[in-house]
């Protein structure tokens, strides 16, 4: 059975997000409200136009999504909570797009928010509790294990990882909604010289803790054209979502995100559903919470052959002006990774790129964008957006 969904006649009506950062004194519901209102304004709609909503967050709390939705109005619309760890935002989008594609909704919203500053130390989930077997395994350490194995098998160097990190820091400085905005050009040397967390990953190779909210509204294409005539039309093309499949050497205990082949299988399912391949993708977004992941995903998402990701880095093919720019908003590393909103922020940037509105970091002629996330537990999701071709 295929795990891919092809969306039929679904377009992006509106996007909105607040710049990620630390907002200790602002309630999460207000962050969500502000992102939701931005998306409604962008769509030329009010909540009365929205038939269904999917709210996502990963902080350990119940009911806060439905409560946040009330900040936007009380219209009786169905609201469903979505939680899929780091991949929550993309999965909320997937459900919204499917609600429209299936015909049960004309307009659907994915609204995600999270507050790292609300998560009590040690209570933020698996790996944080004192009385759990996997308490000593930090996410950074888990991905450092991937990095060490990669270095062993392929001769990858810490400089390769630092080059990707510098690229994402420098993209982040050009994106107004990025959390980390360096006031100078970041070099691989600076990344390598930062404090070591888990070898070979330094603090500048790891995403920051942050708060944030982001919203995307999808709708029937004809409605989007009607509300926003003259704007380039961005379609939701396809989505795939998979959990783990068993293979020997599978690890069960720890903040597991794997095996990495999960991303490869999920990408293949998404490409197949969209009748597209990696050669059609203009710009890509991936789970670069720890930068060595990005290098692995170049291969797993099909942008180069196995063992050639290092070459892609050295030749700058995933940076500005490259063959396949990755994480043009700075990625999880610089734009930030609050949790639930992360995937929607990816789509926010992808839509700006496809509309040609990503000032200072625009990928010229971008037509198809790919958004990938993995979520602890674990799952992987790959999603494709595309600009309407002229004459269609």
């Amino acid at each position: 059975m295929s795990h891919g969904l092809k969306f039929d006649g679904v377009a992006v009506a509106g996007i909105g997000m607040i710049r990620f950062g630390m907002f200790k004194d602002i309630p999460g519901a207000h962050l969500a409200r502000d992102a939701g209102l931005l998306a409604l304004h962008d769509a030329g709609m009010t909540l009365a136009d929205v038939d269904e909503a999917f709210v996502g967050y990963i902080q350990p709390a119940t009911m806060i999504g439905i409560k946040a939705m009330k900040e936007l109005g009380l219209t009786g619309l169905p609201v469903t909570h979505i939680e899929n760890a780091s991949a929550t935002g993309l999965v909320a989008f997937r459900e919204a797009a499917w609600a429209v594609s299936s015909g049960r909704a004309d307009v659907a919203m994915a609204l995600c928010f999270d507050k790292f500053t609300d998560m009590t130390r040690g209570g933020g989930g698996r790996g944080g509790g004192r009385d759990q077997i996997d308490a000593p395994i930090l996410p950074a350490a888990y991905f450092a294990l991937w990095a060490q194995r990669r270095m062993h098998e392929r001769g990858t160097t810490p400089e390769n990882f630092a080059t990707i990190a510098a690229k994402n820091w420098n993209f982040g400085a050009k994106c107004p909604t990025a959390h980390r905005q360096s006031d100078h050009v970041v070099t691989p040397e600076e990344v390598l010289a930062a404090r070591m967390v888990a070898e070979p990953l330094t603090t500048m190779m790891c995403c920051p803790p942050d708060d944030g909210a982001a919203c995307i509204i999808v709708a029937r294409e004809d409605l989007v054209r009607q509300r926003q005539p003259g704007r380039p039309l961005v379609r939701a093309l396809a989505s795939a979502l998979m959990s783990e499949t068993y293979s020997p050497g599978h690890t069960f205990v720890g903040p597991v995100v794997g095996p990495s082949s999960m991303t490869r299988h999920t990408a293949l399912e998404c490409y197949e559903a969209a009748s597209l391949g990696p050669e059609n993708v203009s710009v890509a977004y991936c789970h670069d919470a720890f930068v060595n992941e990005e290098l692995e995903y170049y291969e797993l998402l099909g942008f180069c052959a196995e063992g050639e990701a290092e070459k892609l880095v050295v030749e700058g093919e995933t940076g500005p002006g490259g063959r396949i720019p990755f994480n043009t908003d700075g990625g999880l590393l610089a734009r930030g990774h609050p949790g639930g909103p992360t995937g929607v922020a990816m789509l926010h940037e992808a839509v700006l790129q496809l509309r040609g509105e990503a000032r200072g970091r625009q990928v010229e002629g971008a037509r198809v964008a790919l958004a990938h996330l993995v979520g602890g537990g674990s799952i992987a999701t790959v999603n494709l957006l595309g600009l309407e071709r002229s004459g269609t």
Partner: protein
Amino acid sequence: MARVPIEEGFFRIPDDPTEQPRLLGSRCPACGEAFFPRRLVCAKCLHEGTDDIELSTRGRIWTWTSCHVPLFGKKDADVTGYGLAQVDLPEGPRVQSILSGDPDDFAIGAEVEIDLETLRQDSDGNDVVIYRFRPVGGAA
């Protein structure tokens, strides 16, 4: 002083402190696949019902890292960092674990053996312990 596990059901603590702890696993009677931790349904062939086994005390490092942050629960101790590894056991399971000993002895493929790390004392004065691996023949 008694030793108690950080979480029940993952490893057996021997009464004799000179004896090694044992990880608790399962083996599928239908396809023979072994797992850590214990589970009811075979993850490979979906057979319902597995046999309890105790896993080997030695394995080999599949991958490792050295963490430059204090080990959880030891923030006030003079611990500047600790190792982590994925260890392949002869029965098949790959286990994520603290890696102790001299980082110079950490290497992919190196043989390691299991022992216990004391994380803290609980309110009854028991030592709260977790399993860890260390290079065989390495410095203590």
